[in-house]
């Protein structure tokens, strides 16, 4: 197909979880000046909304953005895919080989345009075109580049005081907010089930090879917001004393000990005095014989790119870390230090071509590890979590600008996870609900604002492209809701949701001797299960391993389940909490039909939603939040200062990219170009 291109260069700035409704609030307050410039110079709806695909879950929506097809069509229908073996288990889904629709980046690469797909968590890895014009970086998890495969060590807080008499180490301590990091009783802090392999379990080699992940969501304690907001990190306590036995310790410095690598790696450290006699820096050394430190940290400044050896499973490799002083007593009687997780700097397995990794490392810098600790600990959110993302955003912006300027990429699809990562840790604290009444919503609303401000800063790094002939799309997969109520135990994306379905009598759990449900499904009595965000599966004879429902009874059973779900009332409020229910064949109306969408699609009603995923894509929440994704376009081929009334759907993005670049539509595309915003008739 021949079509005249409206632009030759196009950048998609994807921001996971970015919500147009709250963006409008911050725009009105003047807090997102760079986004405002893109809007002023480009085109969008007045509400800057995109009508999101359903489910409002990361991999399906990014795949829809890339293919122009609905989830029922492209087959990526939740964060996880249903296990082919078990109704109560899920398997890894961020694998492009599961995607049944063509990605628009294959179209651009095969048409001869140099195309980069950067950490796009929806059907990007492994590359699905052999075109030498296509480069792909990671995309196997939504977090940050290399996070799923290169992590060698976990985050730590080191506390040193003269009162601590010996070095102590406690791995993965779930620390209640506000409690100091002093290890008083190791027996209490040690958790025998320390889960240091979450990255691998979810996104690692085993997961990517199809390993089953079995997660039961039975009560509030199993929900993601409760688990995600707990702050867990390694704690090291050390004596703080006069430096002794050093090859090169400055006058007056005091020493303490840092442990890494599950405790087996030890680094001696010094606190250093300034000319005024106050302690204001921390220096970390390989050992006391070393003449020069690995790094010198100053107060209030996070440093990344710190390379040091890390040992994991008896293998030692150089890794990249970030560090920051959390507290340093000027008199030298207390120091608290944060050190990030460690990323293996030699791991290039998710870079195509691998040479791009070396070029990025040499010309931009090592991948900065992002912090995953924040949650209910406001100090860590303020001092560590948010600044670590700010550093990462800058690194990513520099990488993309390097790729554009120095490597000649003409089409770039990029994804940034800062807002969504923060959302999953702390958005639920943006309204003080009873389970977390010890927190203050104003504090967390302030953090939400900070993440939007840092995102705006990121956008500012690309404004220059509008003067260089580029077209820029700013968009997201979904927004994030601050919940009005504690959500019911149905619709959680991570696994099998038992509570509501158990109450309604469809899912039956085995019982212990006291009659309490245990984490095992009684398949002989279970007629249906609710698994992943929005799907209900009938336990069908002949289809499912332990099926008990005769296929001839399936239709009536579905009707009964739908009826019971509509009649179900929330135990806390007495209100209906189920939104819509559709049989699989009817769910084609919203694009969630077909073999990957269960027997019944349902949504959770507005007002009872968790962050995203369980609602329809138009739901709104507290603090001016919504689950809608955002869409703004600007630059070459786009009308300037233009507002459209057209409903812009997520499926319309890929065909718009195709038209702007003068390319054919992706093969399974179901959307239509947003021709109203184009500068020329097409």
């Amino acid at each position, binding site marked *: 197909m021949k079509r005249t291109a409206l632009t030759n260069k196009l950048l998609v700035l994807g921001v996971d979880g970015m919500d147009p409704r709250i963006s409008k609030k911050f725009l009105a307050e003047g807090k997102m000046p760079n986004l405002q410039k893109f809007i002023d110079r480009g085109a969008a709806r007045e509400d800057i909304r995109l009508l999101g695909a359903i489910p409002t879950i990361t991999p399906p929506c990014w795949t829809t953005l890339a293919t122009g097809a609905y989830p029922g069509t492209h087959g990526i229908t939740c964060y996880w895919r249903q296990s082919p073996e078990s109704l109560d288990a899920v398997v890894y889904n961020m694998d492009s080989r599961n995607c049944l629709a063509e990605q628009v980046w294959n179209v651009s690469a095969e048409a001869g345009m140099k195309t980069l797909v950067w950490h796009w968590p929806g059907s990007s890895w492994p590359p699905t075109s052999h075109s030498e014009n296509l480069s792909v970086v990671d995309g196997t998890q939504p977090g940050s580049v290399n996070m799923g495969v290169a992590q060698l060590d976990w985050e730590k807080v080191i506390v040193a005081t003269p009162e601590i008499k010996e*070095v102590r180490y406690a791995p993965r301590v779930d620390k209640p907010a506000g409690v100091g990091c002093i290890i008083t009783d*190791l027996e209490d802090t*040690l958790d025998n089930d320390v889960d240091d392999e979450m990255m691998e379990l979810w996104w690692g080699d085993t997961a990517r090879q199809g390993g089953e992940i079995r997660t039961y969501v039975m009560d509030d304690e199993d929900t993601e917001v409760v688990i995600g907001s707990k702050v867990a990190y390694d704690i090291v306590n050390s004596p703080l004393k006069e430096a002794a036995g050093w090859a090169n310790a400055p006058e007056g410095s005091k020493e303490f000990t840092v442990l890494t690598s599950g*405790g*087996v*790696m030890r680094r*001696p450290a010094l606190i250093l005095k300034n000319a005024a006699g106050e302690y204001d820096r921390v220096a970390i050394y390989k050992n*006391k014989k070393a003449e020069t430190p690995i790094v010198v940290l100053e107060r209030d400044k996070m440093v990344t790119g710190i390379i040091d050896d890390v040992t994991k499973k008896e293998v030692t490799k150089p890794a990249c870390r970030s560090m920051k002083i959390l507290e340093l007593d000027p008199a030298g009687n207390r120091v608290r230090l944060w050190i990030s997780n460690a990323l293996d700097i030699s791991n290039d397995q998710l870079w195509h071509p691998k040479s791009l990794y070396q070029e990025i490392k040499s010309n931009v810098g090592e991948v900065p590890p992002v912090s995953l600790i924040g949650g209910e600990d406001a100090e860590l959110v303020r001092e560590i979590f948010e600044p670590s993302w700010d550093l990462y955003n800058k690194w990513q912006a520099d990488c993309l600008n390097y790729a554009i300027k120095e490597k000649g990429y003409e089409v770039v699809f990029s994804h940034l996870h800062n807002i969504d990562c923060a959302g999953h840790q702390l958005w639920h604290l943006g309204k003080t609900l009873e389970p977390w009444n010890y927190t203050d919503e104003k504090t967390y609303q302030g953090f939400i604002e900070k993440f939007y401000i840092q995102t705006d800063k990121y956008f500012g790094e690309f404004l220059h492209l509008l003067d260089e002939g580029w077209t820029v799309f700013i968009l997201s997969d979904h927004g994030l809701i601050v919940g009005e109520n504690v959500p019911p135990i149905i619709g959680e994306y991570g696994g099998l949701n038992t509570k509501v379905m158990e109450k309604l009598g469809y899912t039956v759990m085995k019982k212990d001797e006291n009659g309490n449900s245990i984490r095992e499904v009684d398949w002989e009595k279970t007629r249906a299960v609710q698994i992943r965000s929005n799907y209900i599966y009938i336990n069908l004879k002949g289809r499912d391993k332990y099926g008990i429902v005769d296929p001839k009874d399936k239709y009536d059973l579905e009707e009964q389940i739908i009826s019971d779900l509509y009649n179900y009332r929330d135990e806390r409020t007495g209100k209906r909490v189920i939104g819509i229910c559709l049989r699989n064949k009817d769910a084609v109306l919203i694009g969630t039909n077909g073999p990957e969408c269960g027997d019944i699609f349902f949504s959770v009603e507005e007002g009872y939603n968790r962050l995203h995923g369980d609602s329809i894509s138009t739901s709104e929440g507290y603090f001016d939040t919504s689950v809608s994704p955002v869409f703004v376009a600007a630059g070459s081929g786009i009308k300037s200062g233009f507002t459209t009334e057209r409903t812009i759907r997520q499926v319309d993005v890929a065909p718009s990219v195709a038209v702007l670049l003068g390319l054919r539509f992706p093969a399974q595309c179901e959307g239509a170009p947003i021709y109203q915003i184009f500068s020329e008739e097409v």
Partner: protein
Amino acid sequence: MSLQQLNSNSFEEIIYDDCESCLVIFSRKDCHVCKEVVPMLDELKPQYEGKFGFFYVDVEEDKNLFQRFSLKGVPQILFFANGEYQGKLAGKVEEEAVEEKIAEVLNA
């Protein structure tokens, strides 16, 4: 026993600050396997005098060190050189395996 016992603080000084090449066996008094492995180390020690240190940690007296290295069970022999961990041998190990590991650490 000729092996020198370490506690948390002497561990810091000898293993890390002095950067000596050495091994440390984590053992428990009532552990049967330890009762076989420790005497074997006792016998080996004189051959390495001045070149390679032999130490032990009683995990009941110094539970903190045991936990710090995330160890599970005893005996475990940890090897160090230049203040860096060099790997470990666990359980009932033969003399040859220890000698081999020492040679590896000394030649590293």
